[in-house]
């Protein structure tokens, strides 16, 4: 079976690339071995929050000039990076995903109450222009009774440092409490599913009004908007005061919703999704991939003119490691990684970890190589790339989106 482009991977980068190509009329196949890291997303995308030397970044598109030449943003050209970054909001809006962002990094609350920078915020994430911004002076922090994956105490402590007085309450509704009769499944996503029902949301809002005293701001966990953002908008309107949503432990409601919406946009544009299958190898001839093989289809090859590798980092199995080495497991591509296991990690869990920066080697057009030989119809995109310490820099989503757009354009140009 032949496609114009086959994309290996099903996360943010793969879907961005696939949607762009499919919308341009290309016959695209996405092969994804399971759900992606989007499922744990914080409700926001980062472009660049910190430079490799530790300098904090206010204006990411200015700061990229200071990145080393090995960084994907610099590899594809600073102007290209700026152009793609500027088009991102519109791109996602076309997929039904509305994002907020400016040329300056915004601030969002994490679930421990600490603020972090972000580039684009999803609708469930309240983002601030300055970290000193205050929505109000008295916060009502509300959670669902029995929900263990959100920490009102942590949030309150942080807000109180800013001079915002806080009161923590939990709401008990029969329908929600039902979830708790299962010992493990009162998770953000399952609550959000229950909250899809108008009736339950109404009772929840009623409870909020009942317990509200003189508070002028409301803080809620990200437990609204399972299928779309309808429930989220509804809550925002109904509570009658400004709401700040804060991320929960995984799985992430905004992340999973975004993943679903991107998949829908891809299929709506004519793309084909193969979920739960895994590319096991490729036929490479004359420096080009002819076809790829998957575990479901066995020896039946899937052919395409171009291929995109957007398999993610270790979690997504874009990179793999064993006792002795780090390697690219799908096609056996060349990688940038230390050969000494001791150098993969820092001694502190919270320090920057070298292994997160490892990835496949590419030229400036994002063509990876195998045994030193570039593969001319293959592009790598997203966190499988080397050169970005995504977690430390806060560049995970930015690299995923921007390199995917670049790869798609290269394919369209070609």
């Amino acid at each position: 079976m032949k496609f114009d482009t086959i994309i290996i991977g099903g996360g943010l980068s793969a879907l961005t690339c696939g949607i762009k190509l499919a919308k341009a009329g290309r016959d695209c196949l996405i092969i994804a071995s399971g759900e992606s890291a989007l499922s744990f997303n914080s409700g926001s995308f980062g472009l660049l929050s910190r430079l490799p030397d530790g300098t904090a970044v206010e204006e990411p598109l200015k700061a990229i000039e200071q990145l080393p030449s090995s960084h994907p943003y610099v590899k594809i050209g600073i102007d290209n990076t700026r152009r793609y970054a500027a088009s991102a909001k519109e791109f996602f809006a076309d997929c039904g995903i509305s994002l907020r962002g400016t040329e300056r990094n915004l601030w969002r609350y994490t679930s421990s109450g600490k603020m972090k920078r972000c580039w684009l915020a999803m609708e469930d994430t309240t983002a601030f222009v300055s970290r000193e911004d205050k929505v109000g002076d008295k916060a009502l922090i509300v959670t669902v009774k029995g929900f263990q994956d959100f920490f009102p105490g942590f949030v309150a402590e942080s807000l109180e440092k800013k001079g915002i007085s806080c009161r923590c309450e939990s709401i008990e509704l029969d329908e929600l409490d039902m979830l708790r009769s299962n010992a493990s499944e009162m998770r953000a996503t399952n609550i959000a599913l229950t909250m899809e029902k108008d009736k339950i949301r109404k009772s929840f809002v009623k409870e909020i009004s009942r317990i509200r005293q003189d508070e002028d701001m409301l803080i809620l966990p990200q437990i609204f908007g399972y299928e779309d953002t309808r429930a989220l908008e509804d809550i925002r309107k109904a509570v009658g005061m400004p709401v700040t949503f804060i991320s929960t432990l995984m799985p992430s409601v905004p992340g999973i919703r975004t993943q679903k919406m991107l998949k829908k946009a891809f299929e709506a544009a004519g793309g084909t999704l193969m979920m739960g299958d895994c590319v096991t190898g490729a036929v490479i001839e004359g420096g080009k991939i002819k076809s790829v093989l998957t575990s479901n289809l066995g020896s039946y090859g899937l052919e395409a003119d171009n291929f995109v590798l957007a398999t993610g980092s270790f979690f997504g199995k874009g990179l793999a490691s064993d006792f002795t080495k780090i390697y690219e497991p799908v096609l056996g591509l060349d990688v940038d990684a230390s050969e000494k296991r001791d150098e993969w990690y820092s001694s502190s869990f919270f320090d920057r970890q070298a292994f997160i920066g490892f990835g496949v080697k590419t030229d400036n057009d994002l063509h990876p190589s195998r045994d030193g030989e570039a593969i001319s119809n293959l592009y790598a995109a997203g966190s499988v790339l080397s050169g970005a310490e995504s977690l430390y820099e806060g560049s995970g989503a930015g690299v995923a989106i921007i390199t995917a757009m670049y790869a798609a354009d290269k394919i369209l140009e070609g």
Partner: protein
Amino acid sequence: METKMQEKNISANELEQCVKCTVCTAYCPVLKVSVIYPGPKQSGPDGERYRLKSSLFMDNNIKYCLNCKRCEVVCPSGVKIADIIHSARETYGRQIPKVRDFILASTDLMGSVASPFAPVVNAVTGLGATKFVLDKVMAIDHRRTFPKYSGTKFETWFRKEAAPVQGTFKKRVSYFHGCYVNYNYPQLGKDFVTLMNALGVGVDLLEKERCCGVAKISSGMFDTARKHARINIASMEKAMSDGRKVLTTSTTCTLTMKDEYPDILGLDNTSVKDGIVLAIRYIYEMLEKGEAKIAFKEGYRARAAYHVPCHMEKMGLSIFTRKLLKMIPGMELVSLDSNCCGIAGTYGFKKENYARSQAIGKALFDNINAVNPDFVACECETCKWQIEMSTAYKVKNPVSILAEAVDIEKTKKLNNA
């Protein structure tokens, strides 16, 4: 090559590849409607660590798993979650199947008893009083529409009507028809034979075909399932000895014979695994390679909504159906959102599961109603029962859709058949 130290992480059904990401819990159709089920993470890899210590830690509520395998499709770690759950039911559960489960699981036995009396059985199972008895005594839900038993078994029809001419074809395949085609819906088998013959391919049945075993596995009758599986493997081996393939029209039989035989029943099926091919894939590949040609009827028009059955999703073969159906001029194929219909074989027949089953399927039914197609395209027979019972739409197997859209005489000529 021998595995080097820590090069791979091997454990039963990839239990240890789980990194506790919780993604499976967000896509489990049972969890969405029910809190009794402990969920794929707890029932699967989490629970298994405790069960390995002692069967004392077996939670019998893991039986509410539908075995739809959606958890496995979304798992980023390759954990065979549903296989862990179903293997645990055999290893740690003490189950003596209830009469009801025995009856539901014996799709073959019941079929061969019922078929000669089809009109009577169909009438009786449709009667209020009978349903009342089934419901109260057997705990088979009274709201459930029973699949009709056909008067003539597919095998009987085949021997009489089709078998004599198959010798005229040089290229041959064997057909694993499954209990459903044999007892409940021989038309699908007939469509298959007509289509294959038109494409220039002769069809034989296996020397011995037994129920693939899926209903037995889900009702805990592992030993019977194993006995039948061994017979099927041996028959298929024999059929494949001349290099031919064994084609199927049922997704679940296919998945069971290819994956569950080794993963749940612990049987070695390597000799036949690759030779079992879903008909739709086989046909696509033949056309692709130019080994056969196809001509469609002029003026065929249809708007079909394609529901990918869970097991089709798991096997990743829906691309073949899509490509094939899109070849039909005049076919408008609408993709339905990926959802489970809720029946999961015999699961939805059990009284304790009926409400859950219908609740799970609701999203799909709503989706179908919103699309309002001419009919639903779907490869799975139990999805067909469920959708036809729960909506006003007919469900057709893609093989039947093709047989309907193809100009048989023209195609025969193209293939010199």
